[in-house]
């Protein structure tokens, strides 16, 4: 804790009770907060003139199956363009109710990043406008980056499905019939 930055002292002072844990390992500040405080804390971090964390770099999650309780941690990486300060915010999420508030209203980038976390870890985001799978297909069973998803598991191929919005041009078929009819009549 020797290399504690000014920002970490400042944030401890400001957010005191909301911070579950604060560490400055390898020159990187990490803050663990409760998930109920997520949106309020993030909004504070974004508005506060000292830190100004206005750039959402990344959202991901880590599955600590059997190592930590609660099981999941959603990890946000923030960056500040004016002050060049990076902060990692972690939100513990229990397995029984894997739900976190969505940040899509604050950053548009959160849309796809949260969809990926849902796809890979099965953590839901309340308030997300369009929480579909993103890298995998809808029929996929399970969430592959959970530690209890077997690495060699195979899933059966999905059968062909009717795709909504496919453009089928019936006119071309009737036109073809008409043309065949015409050519037959000529010959």
């Amino acid at each position, binding site marked *: 804790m020797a290399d504690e930055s000014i920002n970490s002292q400042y944030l401890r002072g400001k957010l005191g009770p909301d911070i579950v844990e604060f560490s400055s*390992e*390898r020159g*990187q500040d*990490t803050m663990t907060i409760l998930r109920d405080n997520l949106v309020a804390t993030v909004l504070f971090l974004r508005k506060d003139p000292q830190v100004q964390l*206005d*750039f*959402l*770099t*990344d959202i*991901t999650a*880590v*599955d600590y199956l059997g*190592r930590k309780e609660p099981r999941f941690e959603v*990890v946000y*990486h923030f960056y500040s*363009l004016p002050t*060049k300060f*990076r902060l*990692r915010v972690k939100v513990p999420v229990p397995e029984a109710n894997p739900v976190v508030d969505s940040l899509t209203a604050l*950053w*548009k*980038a959160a*849309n*796809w*990043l949260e969809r*990926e976390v849902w796809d*890979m870890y099965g953590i839901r985001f309340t308030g997300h406008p369009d929480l579909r799978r*993103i*890298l*995998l*297909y809808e029929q996929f069973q399970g969430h*592959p*980056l959970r530690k209890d*998803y077997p*690495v060699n598991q195979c899933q059966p191929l999905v059968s062909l499905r009717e*795709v*909504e*919005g*496919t*453009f089928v041009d019936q006119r071309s078929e009737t036109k073809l019939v008409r043309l065949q009819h015409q050519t037959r009549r000529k010959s």
Partner: protein
Amino acid sequence: MEAEGKDLPLETMALQMGPSHPATHGTIKFNLKLEGEKVLDCDVEVGYLHRGFQKSCEQATWTQVVPYTDRLNYASPLINNFAYVMAVEKLIGIEPPVRCQFIRVIMSELSRIFDHLTCCGMAASELGAITAGFYMIEARELVMRLTETVTGARLTVTYGRIGGVKHDLPYQFAEQVQEVFRKIRSILNDCDRLLARNRIFIDRMSNVGVISRENALSYSLTGPILRSTGVDYDVRKAQPYLLYDQMDFAVPLGSRGDNYDRFVCRVQEIEQSMRIVEQALKKLPPGSIAIEDPRFILPQKEKVYNSIEGLMHHFKIIMEGIKVPPGETYFAVEGANGELGFYVVSDGSGKPYTLRVRPPCFIAMAAFAEMIRGYMIPDIVTTFGMINMIGGECDR
């Protein structure tokens, strides 16, 4: 004329473009909602190249991950290699020798030149400027041969090592680079005359795919796309890694945030990257290219076969993998398309516990719908080309 106008359908049409479309390089699908030829909305479907990068990495040892990172952004594999090994080095707390850092700078910048030449050349040839496209591919080939002389491979380089690089630069490398850069500068000069004041090119690129500065920041865009809107954010300047703080280079900025600015930003970055390589080659000190620590670097083959210690170190690294202390770190570099970050979590064993990549093109593709809304179908080709989506990185 009026009678003709009445016949046109006014209802919106749904059209699926992709997953395999000749005008888009990369496997991706756009679910478009069209009114005539105008794009009302676009839903991007990614994931056709998803191969479980993260899951595979969690099964491999720390050293075995390096080849996987080649396959992320296969247009600039060296940057991925170095980003990953530097993240692990930060977690361990080691720093490679100065010569190795210079080599990493040189190879990263060569990789960036390669990536930008690919992107710009493809974008030009997609618009019918085949000549300029082939000129840039020719320049790219020169860089690729340089990469080949150093790493022994053209794309799947696997050149980075935790604690160093695979081997030293070849004999008379500086002269080769000088010769290649002379040719590239002349080719870029030709391309500039072919494209920069070309009416068709400007009409297709200028004021197309515009994204505002606020939206670009909200979508967390990085790299040339963000800089084309005028935001000065380059990881090499903002949080210098390797030896970028000793290099003299500029960060080209655009102002309008359209495709033309993105194109110009990339072309100017090629020149800046060449400047960095020239400076680094001038300053390149003699010395070793990897740390001398048998816990992380494989011993020389003579030692493996002739001494018991060498054999033990070799066995330990191959069978158990190097030991990385428990902890986590996020390390970002400036990739060719934006901020490429590795979030690495270690539990102290020989394998990564979690290895997350922050893929710049995945995040840029999230903003694609915003960029293309209100433009025409042909604009998709240019906008998509200027995002430079690389399937291997976007879908991982």
